[in-house]
């Protein structure tokens, strides 16, 4: 089965570019997770499944209305409620509890979402029949799928927006203050519970947008969450909690490892280099490659 492709420069270039395109989506998908982990210090193992369920919602709305943008907006509204609800209903209770309990409870949430999806939508894959840009895009020697490039660009833009949110806006700064030192933030008169709920909701909304972008390029089935869950955590681990830039960078790294791995090793073994990289990072730079905290 091992048949590594001939090792030449253009291959590497294309591989890297593909990796970056893929990585930017990964980065966006992980951003919500990183935000929640950074500010609330909640270990969310249901992240992938939240992405999965929102992909389904987006798919259904898009199919019924026939307009992806309507789907995006309405599902954003929906998942704002969902996020707030989950926070009040579940996360709220495990704030500051030991990690094991947080993991347990979020795994539970994930199981419920996954099997609800299985019960409601059955196991076959669903995808939007029409894509936004169904044509190739050739830049110099390499041709890319315009659709994926679009997705990548949107992801990057969103990441930058989030960066601005966390460094410029009042809410963002407040949440960072909470992340740095909760008590101090309290004393400064920041309404910590509000910040928590807001941050969690924003995290969920970011995931929803990621889901929207994913639906532009791929299908969803109840097990989509398992693809993204571990991956996003790995990106957060690599990026550390050093802010958006770190996440983007590690998203890129994972993406490039992914595509180069499947080009020069074999797609069937591409996870090996990715996960080994992750483990080594955890060993030697526990705070991540770009971590501040």
């Amino acid at each position: 089965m091992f048949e590594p492709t001939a090792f030449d420069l253009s291959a590497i270039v294309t591989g890297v570019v593909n990796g970056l395109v893929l990585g930017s989506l990964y980065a966006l998908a992980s951003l919500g997770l990183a935000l929640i982990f950074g500010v609330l210090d909640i270990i969310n193992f249901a992240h992938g499944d939240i992405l999965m369920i929102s992909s389904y919602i987006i798919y259904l709305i898009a199919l019924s209305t026939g307009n992806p943008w309507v789907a995006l907006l309405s599902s954003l509204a929906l998942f704002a409620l969902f996020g707030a609800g989950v926070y009040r209903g579940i996360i709220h209770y495990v704030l500051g509890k030991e990690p094991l309990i947080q993991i347990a409870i979020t795994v539970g949430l994930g199981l419920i979402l996954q099997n609800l999806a299985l019960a409601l939508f059955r196991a076959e894959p669903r995808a939007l029949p029409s894509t936004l840009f169904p044509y190739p895009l050739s830049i110099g020697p390499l041709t890319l799928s315009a659709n994926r490039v679009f997705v990548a660009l949107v992801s990057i833009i969103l990441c930058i927006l989030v960066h601005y949110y966390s460094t410029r806006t009042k809410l963002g700064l407040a949440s960072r203050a909470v992340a740095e030192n909760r008590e101090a933030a309290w004393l400064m008169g920041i309404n910590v519970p509000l910040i928590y709920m807001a941050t969690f909701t924003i995290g969920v909304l970011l995931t929803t947008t990621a889901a929207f972008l994913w639906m532009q390029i791929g299908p969803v089935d109840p097990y989509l969450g398992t693809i993204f869950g571990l991956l996003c955590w790995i990106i957060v681990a690599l990026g550390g909690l050093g802010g958006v830039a770190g996440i983007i960078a590690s998203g890129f790294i994972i993406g490039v490892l992914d595509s180069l791995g499947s080009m020069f090793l074999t797609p069937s073994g591409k996870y090996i280099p990715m996960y080994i990289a992750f483990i080594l990072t955890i060993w030697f730079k526990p705070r991540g490659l770009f971590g501040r905290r």
Partner: protein
Amino acid sequence: MLRSLRRREFPRGNYLWIVVNGFEYFFASGFPGSVRVFIASLPGLSGLHVTQKPLIRIKDNNSNTKTHHPRVNTRREVNKFKPTIYLQLIASNYRSVTGLYLRLIGLVVLLVAMYIAFMTSKYYLLFTTNLVFFAAIVLAWNIIGGYAGQLDLGSAGYMGVGAIVSSILSNNIGLHPLISIILGGLSSALLAGAIGFPMFRFGVREVWYALSTAAIVVILNNAVRLLIGPYEYYLRVRPIKTYDELYLATSIALVLVFLLNYAVNNSRLGYYLKAIREDELAAEAIGVDTRRYKLLALMIYAFIVGSLGYLYVVMIGYFYTYRFFDTGISVSIAILGIIGGLGSIEGCLVSAFLLRGVGEYLRTSLAHIIPGLHLLLYGAVLIALGVIEPEGIPGIARRFTTLLKTTKRPMGGVK
């Protein structure tokens, strides 16, 4: 019950010998004693154990009492002592010995009863065997996850490695199954050591530990499939023919793992691990070599799970490499362990038997109506757990007992 512990003649060696309300009692200390206890006490309902040193208090003025260890002590000496001083000692010793004794009997009786109940139907027998098997795995997980408090999601990996190694050894090389089981266990213990040493050396904890172990399962899954191809590998050597034998083997495994858990629980290792779980730095500061003991716990757990792997292969008749290492399995093991309450042997048994039993039954009976109902059940239980009773089954049990006995005094409460 205490009466049953009465003994006229003294056992050889050292012991704690006390008189309470006119009865003489012998009392044991913990591991390794307690395991010897169960062996020593199978003949005759004595539940006695031989401690290294007898603990006899001479003076009793609440404070500055000193402990010394006289060689022999006559009844007259003993009679001088006021029983109350020892009650607390008695309590704990009594628990550690007779408690094990009772629980062991309980477990064995339960296993036998289940066999008697289910032997008529191959289906229920296999079903039960499966439950017993996973109960054993959950108990093994309890050592690293429950006592040491490390959320390990690698069980599928260790089980798989052990399973494959031992099957290949017994099948292709033709080693005796027992030897190959042990070698399989060792190999996965070695793997665990190789992974665990740097992991603890670099202080990987909490979520990062969980993720790394999960990642290792994924790596193994891909690596093994690439190495030997995604096929089913059938056992030609079948040491275990019938389900009755399989049930016996699995039950023995469970009892062994149970005893091992008990041993850990009542040994220095156990106390160290619990201290590590509670507060690693504090444990370090009182002189616990946290790295060393975490690694030890990890390797013990990996060894058990690895050797159990062969039983899994026997259960289905072959091993396969496509999605054999499944993080889903690891996660559900950890879930059962957490629900069982970290470090509670009974809790783990209950959650493994009850929760998984109900879940599997739901799956086999209602799957075609609501697919994944059992997983929904797990999810609900987990969330309820996190919100209501983070300490799992023992926590719930404690609530009930405190509700029941509000007047009853704790062991030493003679006032």
